[in-house]
C-alpha cells in the first residue's frame, strides 16, 4: 500500500503565490495520518489534489494497492427529500449493513435517523456525513475537519472505533486540534507556511488505540514536537 506525492507544486489560477512548491511525501501503511498546520497553509488544497478535484498542479502522484480515495469535508449536506436513516440505507451496500448499525450506535445518531438532515445540529450533521463515507468501499479516506463541530468526547469515541473497525485503511485526518492529532495519529504531517523550508515536517504521534492508555508525558512531548515543527 503506497500513496506517494512527488515534487508537487500548485498555485491557484488567480493567486500571486504558490500553495506548494516541490512538496513530497509518502504514506505506506494504513492508520490515521494527520495533516496539521495553520489555517490557510494548504491542507484542503492538498486533499483536493489527492482526490483529483484540483488538476492544475505539477508533479507526480503515485499509488500502489489503492483503488479508491474518498474525500469528506464538514460542509457537505444530504439531499432533503428523505430522512437520514433512509439515505443511509440507500447508500449502504448490502455487505455493510451490519457495520452501519454498529457505527450509528457508536456515533450517537440513532435519534437523528428519522429526521431530515437540515433538522440536525451541526455536530450531528458532521457525524452523519462521515458515517456515510465509512460505509463505502475505499482505501483512503480524507477527513477534512469532518468532525470539527462535534464535542470532544464523542469525537474520541468515534476515532477509536473507526481505527478499530478499519485497520487496513489510510485515513488522512485534517484537524486543528493538537491534543487529538498527537494522541490518535500514527504520524503528523505538519505543514509550514511557504517561506519556511522544508515545507513539511513529519512528527510521530502516539497512535492510541482502543483499550490502550496514554502516557501523559509522551503525549506532551509529541505535542511540543508538533508545536516546534509548525
Amino acid at each position, binding site marked *: 500500500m503506497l500513496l506517494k506525492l512527488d515534487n508537487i507544486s500548485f498555485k491557484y489560477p488567480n493567486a500571486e503565490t504558490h500553495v506548494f512548491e516541490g512538496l513530497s511525501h509518502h504514506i505506506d501503511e494504513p492508520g490515521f495520518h494527520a495533516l496539521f498546520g495553520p489555517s490557510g497553509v494548504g491542507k484542503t488544497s492538498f486533499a483536493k489534489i489527492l482526490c483529483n478535484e484540483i488538476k492544475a498542479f505539477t508533479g507526480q502522484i503515485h499509488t500502489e494497492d489503492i483503488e479508491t480515495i474518498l474525500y469528506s469535508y464538514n460542509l457537505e*449536506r444530504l439531499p432533503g427529500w428523505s430522512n437520514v436513516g433512509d439515505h443511509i440505507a440507500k447508500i449502504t451496500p448490502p455487505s455493510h449493513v451490519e457495520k452501519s448499525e454498529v457505527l450509528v450506535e457508536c456515533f450517537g445518531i440513532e435519534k437523528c435517523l428519522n429526521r431530515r438532515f437540515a433538522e440536525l445540529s451541526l455536530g450531528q450533521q458532521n457525524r452523519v456525513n462521515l458515517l456515510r463515507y465509512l460505509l463505502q468501499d475505499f482505501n483512503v479516506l480524507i477527513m477534512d475537519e469532518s468532525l470539527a463541530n462535534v464535542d470532544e468526547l464523542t469525537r474520541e469515541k468515534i476515532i477509536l472505533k473507526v481505527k478499530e473497525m478499519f485497520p487496513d485503511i489510510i485515513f488522512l485526518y485534517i484537524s486543528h486540534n493538537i491534543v487529538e492529532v498527537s494522541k490518535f495519529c500514527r504520524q503528523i504531517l505538519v505543514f509550514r507556511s511557504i517561506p519556511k523550508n522544508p515545507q513539511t515536517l513529519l512528527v510521530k504521534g502516539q497512535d492510541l488505540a482502543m483499550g490502550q492508555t496514554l502516557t501523559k508525558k509522551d503525549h506532551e512531548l509529541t505535542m511540543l514536537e508538533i508545536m516546534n515543527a509548525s
Partner: protein
Amino acid sequence: MLHRRLYQFLIIYSLGLSGLFLIKYTLNLSNYVIPGPANLWATCREVWLRYFFDTGDTLAVAIIGHITSTCLAIFVGIVGRQATWVGSFVKVAAYNVQAYPIVALAPIIFILLGDGFISRLLIAAMICYFPILLSVLGIMAEPVVDIEHFYRITGRMRWQLEIKIRAFENMNKLITVIAGSATLAMAGTIVAEFIAANAGIGYSIRIALYQSDLSKILIALFLIGLSLSVYQGLLEFSGYLAKKKWEVPKGGIV
C-alpha cells in the same frame, strides 16, 4: 390564497374597466369604440353562459397543454443542460422553434398534424413551455456542490440523481415558474383557438373581433381572468402544500 387571488383579480378588472369608461366619457366616445355599462351588461346577459362554457373548454385544453409543456420543458431542459454537442444542439433547436411566431408556423403545423385537437394542444404547449424550459436549463446547469460531492466521489452519480438534487434544491423556483406559466398555457390555448379551432373562448374572441364587439371581448377577458385565477390559485396552493411538506420548520413562528 385562492380567495385573495380572486378578489385581487376583481380589483384589477374593475380598475381596467373604470379606466376604459373614464376614457369613454372624457372623450365622449360611442358604444362602438368603448361600450357603455348598459351595453356591456346587456351583452353580458346575452353571452355569459355560452362564454362560460367556452372558457371551461379552453381551460381544459390549457391544463392538458400545461402538463404537456411542463413535461416537454423538463425533458428538453434535462437534455439541453449538458454541455455536450447534443445538449447544445437540442437547446438551439428549442430556442429557434420558439423564435418563430406561431402564426408563421401554424400553416406548417396544420400540414403536418391537421387542424384537430393535437395541433391546438401543440400550439398551446409551445407557447407555454419556454419559460419553464429556461428555468429548468438555468437550474440544471448549476451544480449543488455540497450535496453532489458525495455521489460524485463515490461514483454513485447518475443523471437522474443529479436532476433530482438540483430540482429539489430549487423547488421554490420551479414551483413559481410552473404555476406562473399556467397563464401562458391559457394564452397559448386561446391563440391556438384563435387561429385554428371551432370551439373555445379564443374562437369566440375571434368572432367578436371580426364584429368589432368590444363588449364581448371584455366579457371574455373577464371569464378568462377569473378561470385563470382559480386555476393558478389551486396550483399555488398545491405548491404551498408541497413546500410545506418538505420545508424544515425553524421554530420561527409563534
